[in-house]
């Protein structure tokens, strides 16, 4: 899609940041703009890499200041972090390409933003830990025998054929769109103390037993997937691909959920992490779509909450770091150094100890205790209390992770978060559902 010449960027001006660094960079930016990518311009090589500042933004889950502090310590340069939500991140990548150097984005939005041409792919040969990255982000297979789940599986948008290509490659190439950093398998969160019976299927979300006590997340691209998991589990709809529904499938799904809404099945719809925590901890809701750390947060408040594995499987998501098209020279080198450091284990340990998974789990192991590794990755009972990287106690000795080991959880993914071909239609239908 070479709409680049025709398209224009957001009318709102990007923040005027006239720092020294920006000034140094302007020359490069103009050169790149004029020569369209391959422009070589005199680099200030004498400048030490320590003077480099990289600006990163992305979703809150992995934009933790602790990472920036460690970068300063280990690599010497400065990393500026800005935490945004999923939509805003995608929006900034598309509309304000000069406002970032590294974008931490989710795989399903890659499909949306790659076409803008504002990101450049990674040269795989420069990635030190590429062979340690799990198969999900290469050929799509967790183990050689795994079945690939529906939706925007990360490997389908993981590679391009050339540095300037705007369409995705069929298989592995030397050009990596994002370096994967963080991912997880999502399911429903429940309050076992208020439900008082085992929950095994996605169908329970619409069970009239929980009338007025259920919730679903109001982010259309993810909410529709949870809705589809429910409808499929009920046997009401058989989908060709839940991650890429037809108009008819979207209509049927929304019809079932609109009826449930009108019947008063839902207490609320949530949009942010904190809302989901509040709904659950206050007991307003006993079963809902939830994110893993939100469940952990509720638990750490001393309120029983289970991230319930369900027989139909998980809905999964993943994120990675993307490089701005404007990066070149010394800053590009610094960015590669940062990415290689990212995969070398320290960050992986930090993320895994919060319940996420690292793209290169092997390297993270070095930065976790055996007990932590056993609990988070292998699904073994904790020997001691499990403490998160920020010092909060998450679990007591003896606890086992909901859903078990890495292979049990990531092996049971039914669908990946995705952007559908009928995205615009789906969004309209979703908004109708919310307004119904």
């Amino acid at each position, binding site marked *: 899609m070479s709409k680049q010449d025709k*398209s*224009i960027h957001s*009318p709102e001006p990007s923040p005027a940041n006239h720092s020294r660094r920006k000034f140094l960079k302007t020359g490069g930016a103009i050169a790149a703009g004029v020569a369209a990518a391959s422009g070589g311009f005199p680099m200030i090589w004498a400048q030490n890499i320590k003077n480099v500042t990289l600006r990163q933004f992305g979703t809150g889950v992995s934009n933790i200041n602790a990472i920036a502090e460690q970068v300063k310590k280990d690599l010497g340069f400065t990393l500026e972090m800005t935490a945004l939500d999923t*939509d805003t991140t995608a929006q900034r990548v*598309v509309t304000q390409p000069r406002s970032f150097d590294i974008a931490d984005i989710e795989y399903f939005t890659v499909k949306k933003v790659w076409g803008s041409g504002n990101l450049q792919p990674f040269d795989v040969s420069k990635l030190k830990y590429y062979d340690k990255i799990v198969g999900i982000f290469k050929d799509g297979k967790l183990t050689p025998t795994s079945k690939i789940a529906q939706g925007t599986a990360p490997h389908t948008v993981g590679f391009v054929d050339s540095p300037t290509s705007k369409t995705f490659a069929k298989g592995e190439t030397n050009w990596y769109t994002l370096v994967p950093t963080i991912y997880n398998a999502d399911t429903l969160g429940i309050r076992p103390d208020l439900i008082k019976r085992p929950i095994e299927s996605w169908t329970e979300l619409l069970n009239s037993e929980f009338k007025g006590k259920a919730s679903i997340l109001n982010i259309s691209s993810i909410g529709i997937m949870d809705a589809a998991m429910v409808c499929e589990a009920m046997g009401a709809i058989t989908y060709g691909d839940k991650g890429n529904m037809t108009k008819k499938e979207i209509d049927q799904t929304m019809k079932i959920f609109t009826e449930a809404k009108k019947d008063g099945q839902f207490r*609320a719809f949530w949009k942010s992490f904190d809302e989901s925590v509040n709904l659950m901890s206050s007991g307003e809701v006993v079963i809902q779509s939830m994110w893993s750390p939100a469940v952990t947060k509720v638990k750490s408040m001393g309120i029983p909450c289970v991230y319930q594995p369900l027989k139909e499987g998980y809905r999964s998501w993943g994120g990675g770091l993307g490089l701005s098209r404007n990066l070149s020279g010394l800053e590009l080198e610094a960015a590669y150094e940062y990415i290689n450091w990212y995969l070398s284990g320290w960050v992986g340990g930090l993320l895994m100890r919060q319940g996420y998974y690292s793209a290169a789990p092997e390297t993270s192991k070095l930065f976790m205790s055996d007990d932590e590794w056993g609990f988070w990755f292998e699904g073994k009972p904790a020997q001691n209390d499990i403490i998160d990287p920020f010092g909060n106690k998450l679990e007591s000795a003896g606890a086992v992770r909901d859903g078990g080991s890495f292979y049990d959880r990531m092996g049971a993914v039914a669908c990946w978060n995705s952007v559908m071909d009928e995205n615009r239609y789906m969004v309209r239908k979703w*908004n109708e559902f*919310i*307004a119904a």
Partner: protein
Amino acid sequence: MMTRYLQITPLLLVLGLFFIGPILIISIVSFWDYNEFSLIPDFVWTNYQELFGSQVTYTIYLNTFKFTLLTWLCTFLIGFSVAYFLAFHVRSLSWQMALFLLCTVPFLTSNIIRMIAWIPVLGRHGLVNSGLQTAGIIDQPLDWLLYSDFAVVLAFVHLYTLFMVVPIFNSMMRIDRSLIEAAYDAGASGWQTLWQIILPLCKPGIAIGSIFVITLVMGDFVTVQTMSGGQSASVGVAMNNKRALLQYPAAAADAMVLLVTVLIIVALLMRAVNIRKEL
């Protein structure tokens, strides 16, 4: 002649830059096309066609009008009573000022905080429900207190009543007290004085307060989103959804239609009450 132009230049610049300019840009963008990741300068009617062609638009507008009407009614009744009390029952000027300032104290906090503070109060296990249950008035918690239209209107009333109080209080303070004495001397009852003297003389204040409340409620999205638990939609919520999904031209078209709707309402109000003349 020259000086006259120079004198209006600053105001013209400020208004042009921060008011007329942005509105012009929004109206231009509302005719653009868009795809997933970019805006395409064009002149198409699709944004408006999709807006008027969708049943949801009408549902949403109806819902927004409902919120506006209920909020207006409540804020007017409360605002008028409070202003009446301040203006006619409190005798000393210093007390009037002190009580008036007291009314504004909650407004020193952010309106988001004032809104969110309702959630633990109205929740299923919140203050009201547990209070009623302890008192034995109800067995089951009342679900409709929170995440309902009731909660939305309650929050609006709490947030915006002051906007009614201030202009009505201002109008009441300007009423010549001898008029009320004259009414009393002529044998009018309290109600008659209120209905035939005070209310008509407060019309400009009521109109100004109404404009504040109506425009604020019509354009709101945070309150509706939070207090209805995302289960109700308003024009603002729909617009914000489109903005978040990068559908700027569609959101701009929404904004233009809302702007025109609100302008019509304000124009009707201005017709009913000549604010300028009576100020």
